[in-house]
């Protein structure tokens, strides 16, 4: 495993170093695949996007200006490529996320509600999969990739406020979903 920083790997890739690209691929292929999967819901498509993203890195490594983290830059490309694939293959699935922002999340869940979620894995996954893509991506990038909300805003090309709103709605929808599936746990 390379000890080079992400930026150093990109510099080597910009110089045509395929070994550096392999190291970069090894480091980030999981991140790119998983994020793409949240948009495409299809492993084969996510793998195709992974390939396209890494080819794009090969072509554009020299354009990375260092104004954001490499991972943020990479996930921005991933989001763009994922949406592009949806446009090409499944245009009917593209939703206007902006039009959905005002949808009420339903009744608010009391903050005192505490669910033993560690024992309810299947239900959690089911509820995650019911989230709208934009909401799930925010949840994934926050809790799994542990990115800041400005970084998420940059990756998803949305305002900071929209990131927070989507997280708020996602949380409420997840908790409501879990309450229904678990038979209504008392607050």
């Amino acid at each position: 495993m390379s000890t080079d920083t992400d930026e150093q790997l990109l510099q080597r890739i910009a110089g045509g170093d395929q070994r550096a690209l392999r190291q970069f691929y090894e480091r980030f292929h999981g991140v790119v695949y998983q994020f793409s999967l949240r948009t495409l819901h299809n492993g084969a498509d996510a793998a195709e996007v992974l390939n396209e993203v890494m080819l794009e890195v090969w072509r554009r490594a020299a354009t990375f200006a260092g104004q954001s983290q490499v991972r943020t830059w990479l996930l921005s490309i991933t989001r763009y490529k994922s949406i592009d694939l949806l446009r090409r293959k499944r245009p009917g699935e593209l939703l206007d996320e902006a039009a959905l922002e005002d949808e009420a999340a339903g009744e608010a869940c009391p903050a005192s509600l505490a669910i033993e979620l560690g024992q309810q894995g299947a239900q959690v996954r089911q509820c995650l999969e019911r989230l709208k893509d934009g909401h799930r991506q925010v949840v994934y990038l926050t809790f799994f990739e542990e990115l800041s909300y400005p970084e998420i805003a940059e990756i998803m090309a949305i305002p900071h406020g929209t990131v927070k709103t989507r997280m708020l709605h996602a949380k409420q929808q997840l908790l409501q979903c879990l309450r229904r599936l678990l038979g209504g746990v008392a607050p």
Partner: protein
Amino acid sequence: MNTELDDRALLELLPWYLNGTLEGAELAAVEALLLRSAEAREELEVLRRLAAAVREQEQAYEAPPFELGWARLQRGLQQEARPAPRRDWWKPGLAAAAALVIALQLGILMRPAQVDSDWQLQSGGSEQVLSGGYRVQLRFVEHAQWQQIRALLLELDAVLVDGPSALGVVQVHVPADKRFRDGQALLQWLQQQAVVQHAALLAREQP
């Protein structure tokens, strides 16, 4: 009222307090909120459990096997029309830099050659015996490897004088060599070399 609005805005930051990415004034404000608000502390606990469950479930999605994905990417790289450095030779605007690079690689100094004013192009026609060496125009085959070109020029002890032009034509000075009785013999030898597409004898040169 203003405090309530601020608290609502701060509550929205709890996910990023939880994942450790809040900084500065926002971090300080959320920490102060957690100290004074039981509601905020309960909300944080709910988020903590939710985050743990999300991480556990999201971890279940694995990327495709590394070697398969890398092999696929390598096939894509091979199909990429990535220009090789040697081809950059022939691009207009890079000729001067390319010539310097070649000269440095060959350890050859570029020096201006004094050309006899009475020169004529000789290529398969009547020859003019030149002393002190020859100015030769060369064009290499498209797939020529740099090592092959370099080997040819070193064998002749040639010096790059001009080019490559936009069409990939170079002019080299070739010192007089006992192997070649005259310019025509040199020309014939050059035209037999696999890397040479075209060769023309331009002039004799004064040392």
